[in-house]
C-alpha cells in the first residue's frame, strides 16, 4: 500500500498457549482515514487491538506508528499506558469500560489526566490553588463540556456514567477517548447494541471526528451498514489471518469474505451470490 499511513502492522502474530489468535497479519491504516477491521466472531480482531494498544505483547511482528510530524514510534515496545500517553493512541472496549461510579463529566476529566497533572505542577501547584492551575482546570472542564455537547449528553453531565443508557455509554466512551486528544482512535464495536437511529448518529459522530479533529480511526465493527457507510478502507480477518482488504465496495463483492462470514467454502459462496443476483 502506498500513501501516508499512520499505523503499519507488520507480520503481527499473537499466540495464547496453543491458540494462534493472530497469524502473520500485515495491514496499514491511513492518516485521517477510517479503516475498518472486520471478520467473523473469534477472528482475532480484538486481539489485534490489544496488541496495538499494548495490553498484549505480540508474540512476533512489528507495529509502527508515525505522527504527523514524521516522528515514528514502535508500539510493540511500549507499555500500554505509554502507548496512550506518548504515541497518542486511544481506544474503547468491546464491553464498555467507563468509570461507572463517576459522573460523565468526571469521566472526561480523568481522560485529561496527563495534561492536568502537568498543569497542576504534579499536584503541588494544584494543592495551593495556583492561578495557572485554575485556568488549566477550567480549560479541561470546557473541553469536556464541548465533547458532552457533541455527543448530546450535556444535560447528563452530572449523572453517574453507570446510570446512563447503553447507547449513551458507548458515545461517552468515545468522547472520553477523544479527550486524550489522540492521533489514532481505535474503536472496538462501537455500534454493538445500538438501534438503527443510534447507529446512524454514531456514523455521523465518527465522520465529524475525522473531519474536525483530523483523527485517524481504526474501527472494529460487525454492523455492515456502519462499515460500508463510513470506512475508507476495510481489512477482513478470519481465523487470525487477513483474507481480503480494499474499499468497502470491493469487499462487499468478494466471495472469500462472504464465505468467511457464512462459514462455507468459496465455491458455495459464489453460488450463493450468483443465485442471489
Amino acid at each position: 500500500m502506498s500513501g501516508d499511513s499512520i499505523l503499519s502492522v507488520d507480520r503481527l502474530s499473537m499466540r495464547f498457549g496453543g491458540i494462534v489468535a493472530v497469524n502473520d497479519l500485515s495491514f496499514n491504516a491511513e492518516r485521517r482515514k477510517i479503516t475498518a477491521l472486520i471478520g467473523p466472531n473469534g477472528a482475532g480482531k480484538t486481539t489485534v487491538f490489544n496488541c496495538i494498544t499494548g495490553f498484549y505483547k505480540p508474540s512476533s511482528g512489528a507495529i509502527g506508528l508515525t505522527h504527523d510530524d514524521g516522528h515514528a514510534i514502535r508500539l510493540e515496545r511500549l507499555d500500554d499506558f505509554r502507548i496512550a500517553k506518548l504515541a497518542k493512541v486511544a481506544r474503547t472496549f468491546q464491553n464498555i469500560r467507563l468509570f461507572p461510579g463517576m459522573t460523565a463529566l468526571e469521566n472526561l476529566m480523568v481522560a485529561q489526566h496527563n495534561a492536568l497533572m502537568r498543569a497542576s505542577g504534579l499536584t503541588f501547584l494544584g494543592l495551593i490553588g495556583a492561578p495557572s492551575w485554575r485556568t488549566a482546570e477550567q480549560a479541561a472542564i470546557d473541553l469536556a463540556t464541548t465533547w458532552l455537547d457533541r455527543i448530546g449528553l450535556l444535560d447528563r453531565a452530572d449523572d453517574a456514567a453507570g446510570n446512563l443508557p447503553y447507547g449513551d455509554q458507548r458515545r461517552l466512551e468515545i468522547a472520553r477517548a477523544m479527550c486524550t486528544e489522540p492521533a489514532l482512535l481505535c474503536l472496538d464495536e462501537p455500534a454493538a447494541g445500538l438501534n438503527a437511529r443510534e447507529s446512524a448518529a454514531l456514523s455521523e459522530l465518527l465522520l465529524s471526528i475525522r473531519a474536525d479533529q483530523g483523527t485517524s480511526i481504526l474501527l472494529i465493527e460487525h454492523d455492515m451498514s456502519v462499515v460500508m457507510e463510513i470506512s475508507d478502507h476495510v481489512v477482513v480477518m478470519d481465523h487470525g489471518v487477513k483474507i481480503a482488504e480494499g474499499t468497502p465496495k470491493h469487499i462487499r463483492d468478494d466471495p472469500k469474505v462472504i464465505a468467511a462470514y457464512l462459514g462455507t467454502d468459496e465455491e458455495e459462496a459464489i453460488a450463493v451470490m450468483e443465485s442471489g443476483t
Partner: protein
Amino acid sequence: MSANPAAQTSRAPSAAFILKKSLISALVALVLFSLMIGVRTEAGPDGQLTYWTRFGDLAAIVAAVFGGSILIELFRQWWGPVDTARIVPAPVQGALSLAGRLIAPVLLAFTFLVPVLFYDERYILDLGILVLTYVMLGWGLNVVVGLAGLLDLGYVAFYAVGAYSYALLATNFGLSFWICLPLAGILAAFWGVLLGFPVLRLRGDYLAIVTLAFGEIIRLVLINWQSLTGGPNGVTGIPRPTLFGIPLTPGDDGLAAMLGIEFSPTHRIVFLFYLILALALLTNWVTIRLRRLPIGRAWEALREDEVACRALGINTTTTKLTAFATGAMFGGFAGAFFATRQGFISPESFTFHESALVLAIVVLGGMGSQLGVALAALAMIGGFELFRGLDQYRMLVFGMAMVLLMIWRPRGLIGHRAPTVFLERKEAISSDLVKEGHG
C-alpha cells in the same frame, strides 16, 4: 437464587418452624461448646494439665442460643426479607438529608468545644484524643482503601514507622517534635513507596496479604532489633511536645509561667487535643483537595477500572504509589503524635489488631466518605470504651461487631459518593454504582 424459596417460606414461618430452627441452633451450639466451654483445662502447680467441667455454663450458653434464635426468627418475621427496600416517607427523608448536611459542621464545632466543655474531665479529654487519633488514621487509610481501592492490611506498619522515627530521633539526637513530625511523615511515606513498588501490581487479596505480612515483618523487626529499638521493652522517655519550643511544664521557661497563669497538667492534655485535631483536619483538608486534583481523580478512576485507566495513559503504578505514600505519610504523622503523647512506645502497640481496627473504621464509614470515617471512628472507639469493664471480652465483642456490621451494612454508613466536579448540580452517586477496587 437457590435461597429464594427459603426466603419465601420464612416470610410467615409457623411457630413449629421457628421452634425447629432454634432447636437446631441450640443443638449446634451444644456440640460446638461441649468441649470448649463444658470443659476447662489449666496447668496445675506441678505443670500437669488438669481439667474440670462447667456444665452449668454450657447449659446457660446453649439456652441463650436457643432463646436468641427464637428472638432472631421473630424479629425476621416482623422485619420481612432482608433485601426489601424500605420506603422512607418524604418528610423523614427531608429531615434526614438536612441532618446529613448539618452533621459535619455541628460535629466539628462540638469537637472544637470539647476541651472547653470538659476541661475538668481528664477522662473525656483522653478519650477525645484517642478518637481523633483513629479519625486521623482512618482518614489516612481512606486515601489508600477508600479512594484508590487498594486493600492495605498492614497500615499499622506506617503508624509504627512514624512513632519509632520520632521516638528514636528525639531520644538519640534530641530533635524537637516539630522537626521530627515532617521527618516521621516522610520516612513513613518512604517506607510506603519501598513496600509499594514491588507489590502494587498484585491484585486484590494478594495485596492484602502482602501488606499484612509487611506489617508483621516491621513488628517482628522492632521486637528483635534490640540494639536499635529496645526490643519488646520499647523506647521510653520520649520528649513531650512543645508549643513551638515552649515546653508545657511547671518550670520558669514553661508556657504557664510565660503567660503568667497557674500551671496545670491539663494544659498539656488540651494542647495534645488541639494538636491531634489540627493534624486530623490537615489530613482531611489535603484529602478533600487531592480528590479534586487530577491525582485524586486518577485514584478513584483506578478503583473503578484499572484497565480503562491504562487505556487513557495513566501510569497506574505511580498513581498507586502516590496513594500508598500519601496514606503512609498520614499514618506516620499519627504515629509521631502517638509517641509524643504516650512518652513510651513498644511493638505491642502495633499489632495486626490495630490495622484491622483502622480498616474496619474505613469500611464501616463507607469507603471514601470522610464524614463516614469520622463517625465510624467515634462509634468504634466509643463503643470500645463502653466495654472497658469487660476487658477480657473486648476482642470477642469487637470481632462480633465487625461481622454484624458488615452483614448489616456491607457498604458502610455513608456509601454514596460525592462527585468532585460538576456543571450544574452536585448529586450524590449511589453506592451500587461505585466500585470498590480490586486491590
